[in-house]
């Protein structure tokens, strides 16, 4: 089980044992991490599971698809390293990965 750290906007961090094959969003929800709303339940259709992946881990999270890109493009706080956490599937290569959460989901 790779360890993944999620850091809330206020700096509080949470390290979880993430389950591979499951999305980062589902892992966060299952571990009760605040800051990810995931209104659509992982359908890449709400944009409320936004995270910033720490630069050196960004490539490990894989490519985003065009739908994810359109959803992200409506976020005023989008950065280069923005991803929707429901579109990141946890792999063993992500052991030690750090992601930050935005100030708000909208």
């Amino acid at each position, binding site marked *: 089980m790779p360890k993944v750290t999620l850091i809330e906007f206020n700096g509080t961090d949470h390290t979880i044992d993430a389950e591979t094959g499951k999305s980062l969003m589902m892992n966060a929800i299952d571990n009760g991490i605040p800051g990810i709303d995931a209104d659509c339940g992982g359908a890449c*259709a709400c944009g409320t599971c936004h995270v910033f992946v720490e630069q050196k881990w960004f490539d490990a999270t894989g490519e985003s698809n065009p739908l994810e890109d*359109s959803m992200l493009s409506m976020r005023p706080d989008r950065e280069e390293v923005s991803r929707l956490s429901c579109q990141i599937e946890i792999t063993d290569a992500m052991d030690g990965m750090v992601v930050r959460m935005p100030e708000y989901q*909208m």
Partner: protein
Amino acid sequence: MNQIADMPDAVETPLDQIDFSDPRLLKDDSWHEYFARLRDESPVHYQAESPFGPFWSITRFEDIVAVDSNFQDFSSEPTIIIGEVGEEIPAEMFIAMDPPKHDVQRKAVQGVVAPKNLEEMEGLIRTRVQEALDDLPVGETFDWVEKVSINITTQMLATLFGFPFEDRAKLTYWSDIAAAGPQMTGGDIDPQERFDGLMECLATFTQLWHDRKAQNDDGFDLISMLQRDPATADMVDRPMEYMGNLLLLIVGGNDTTRNSMTGGVLALNQNPAEYDKLRADQSLIPSMVSEIIRWQTPLAHMRRRATRDIEFGGQQIKKDDKVVMWYMSGNRDERSIENANEFIIDRANPRHHIAFGFGIHRCMGNRLAEMQLRILWEEIMLRFSHIEVMGEPTRVNSNFVKGYETLPVRVHPL
């Protein structure tokens, strides 16, 4: 339109003899059984004839998510209601646009409802809600829709637009007529009245644009934001686009929250055990707010148009066919929501509903709507032990706006 014959029996009638666009289904709140049948028997359903032409009905939650997030195959142009908007006012709004134009225009106004701005507005909203509630006539039966729901949403809209406060009733009027054309949603506004009203709306807002420009301050109202964004800075020179987007924001901010404000009172009265739960634990308000929005689903549908022949749900949808996603039905779909037909204020996953839509057109005012409802209920619970419904509500005659014209209530102070 088709107000002559009685509605066909919901259980016995063959599905192809039922008109699912008939506004009476919402007006009489009789839609539940009809749409439950569609979900079970024909979830992707073709209706060959209706006063609005032929269309597909999509009624299951998962299918709605699939259509809503596939903007390539299911276009939002030219409009997002079952009917046609008519040629006389060719208003253009970003909800009825596809990318890339949609994204540019939406982004220009999105910031007004960013949570940072909302926080700043919270105090103001709370003061206004307090004033409205403190003015209610205790011991008398009165209309909740007029005295609370319309009153509060209109004040909020005036604030968002920087609209002259004393004229704010006009915003409600324009919102009402914008979406009430008979050929659009089955409403009953006279076309000439609608035309005149919307022209007045455009003239008023054009004046407001120029006045605001002359003031040249950094307001955080919507008009100032449009003026600041390079993509929309000269929108006033494209009147139909300007009006379209104004109407979108007026209707989007008006019909929706207003009807959820009324729907919540009704739902709690129909479910007294839930009202007890709320009285015992007011920290349930945020999850109740999501549940109210799901239960009410103030906009019944959104329409798309197929951009190519496509197989969907085992059916052959043809290029240019109208595809109607019935949000209110998706929100009652037991396949995706446990006990979907019950009102449960502490349900496990209350944000998992479809009332805001999904995908790139998902409601941009969702957090503002939730905040207004949360404040309303926080302030209600500080004042009243019970808001008692005194009679049946009257509902809006429309297949699009699922809402209330009146709801007689009495308030009982703590």
